[in-house]
């Protein structure tokens, strides 16, 4: 698990963006108490804009940029996104076109959404006992520089799953 420094709101090197909250994920972990591994899977992660770090908490909707990254605060880990950096083509260049037909051997559009996974086994063994419904909070942090895009929101994710393995 990556340790991250506390963000000072006066720290202008970093920018606070809109915090993401997932829909509830129902999972009665007591039925699967012998799991040897637990993952959070982030499906369909967008990466078209800036690079960012997403600090992930379970069942802590009040988590923000100054929440300590500890299990006591239900912090389970962080992921990083290497952002595209905005669009530098003509109109439509960054639109993700789904390919049609089995004879199209071109690769998917570079901005096709990605997949990330955090292994949260030890954390989930603790947190899973306390609940059978989980909301995932992602606190995104980007770095400011002279080219930073003017965006308020950055976390794009199509689906979040919590998966355990026995």
């Amino acid at each position, binding site marked *: 698990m990556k340790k991250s420094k506390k963000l000072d709101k006066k720290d202008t090197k970093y920018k606070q963006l809109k915090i993401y909250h997932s829909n509830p994920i129902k999972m009665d972990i007591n039925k699967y108490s012998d799991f040897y591994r637990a993952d959070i899977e982030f499906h369909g992660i967008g990466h078209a804009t800036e690079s960012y770090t997403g600090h992930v908490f379970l069942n802590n909707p009040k988590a923000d940029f100054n929440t300590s990254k500890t299990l006591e605060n239900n912090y389970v880990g962080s992921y*990083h996104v290497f952002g595209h950096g905005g669009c530098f083509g003509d109109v439509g260049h960054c639109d993700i076109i789904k390919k049609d037909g089995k004879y199209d051997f071109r*690769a998917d559009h570079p901005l096709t959404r990605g997949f990330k996974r955090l292994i949260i086994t030890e954390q989930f063994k603790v947190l899973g006992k306390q609940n059978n419904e989980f909301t995932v909070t992602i606190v995104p942090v980007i770095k400011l520089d002279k080219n930073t895009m003017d965006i308020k929101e950055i976390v794009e994710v199509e689906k979040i799953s919590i998966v355990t393995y026995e």
Partner: protein
Amino acid sequence: MNLRKNIQNLTNDELKNLRLAFSKLMEFRDNRGFNYIAGIHGAPQFKCWHHWRRRGEPRLLPLFCPWHRAYLYWLEKSLQDQVPDVTLPWWDWSSPISRSEGLPKAYSERTDSAGNPNPLLKSRIFVPTTTPPLNEDTFRNPGSPSELPTKNEVDTMLSKQDFADFEDDLEDIHDSVHGWVGGSMGRVVTAGFDPVFWAHHTNIDRLWRIWQMNRADLGFPPDLLNEILEPFPFTVRDVLEVKRLGYEYASASGSS
């Protein structure tokens, strides 16, 4: 067999040759030049492979490792066209010195020992065909050195047995370093133009190599070995073994 070395361990002559090779490559405006090769990754060609993507079939292809290995090879050969036997060094961002001082001095000094501008500090991004056109020097915005990946994180990644798990961890650490350096390196569009991109990715390639060495097999899904690494004339199979590409990684070497 060419040996790639840790940037911290280059001799003065090796560093001088590396800088000379980069300088010469940066002088060309045609497809031999650094500007052209850097532009394969992001703008204007956007050929880089990140994440798992499809190509012509339902399978997701994890080509991040082999694609970047081919890319490094391409630049290294181009550098060697200018200065024979020069090799790409790696930047171990998890080392104690990196986590204490940040970017290697070889890439952050303004001038070389002779007082000439350091070609490893930055390059000119010249891509007139993008919208808007790109014509600016690369720049960096590094974070605190203590935020770089730790040895523990790297060791945990190397201990993963499953390729998918290893690759996920490697890409995440890779993404974090791009974000740590920030600036041009923090964006896919411009990352390849920063000379430190190549030292970062040589370390990524080295870590894949180490992971491969710890296995009885070469640790890549066998059904993907024929996948093409466009725009390079390679398949995954062609780049799976670094010795086949004529290089190896050395933490120490000596010869009679």
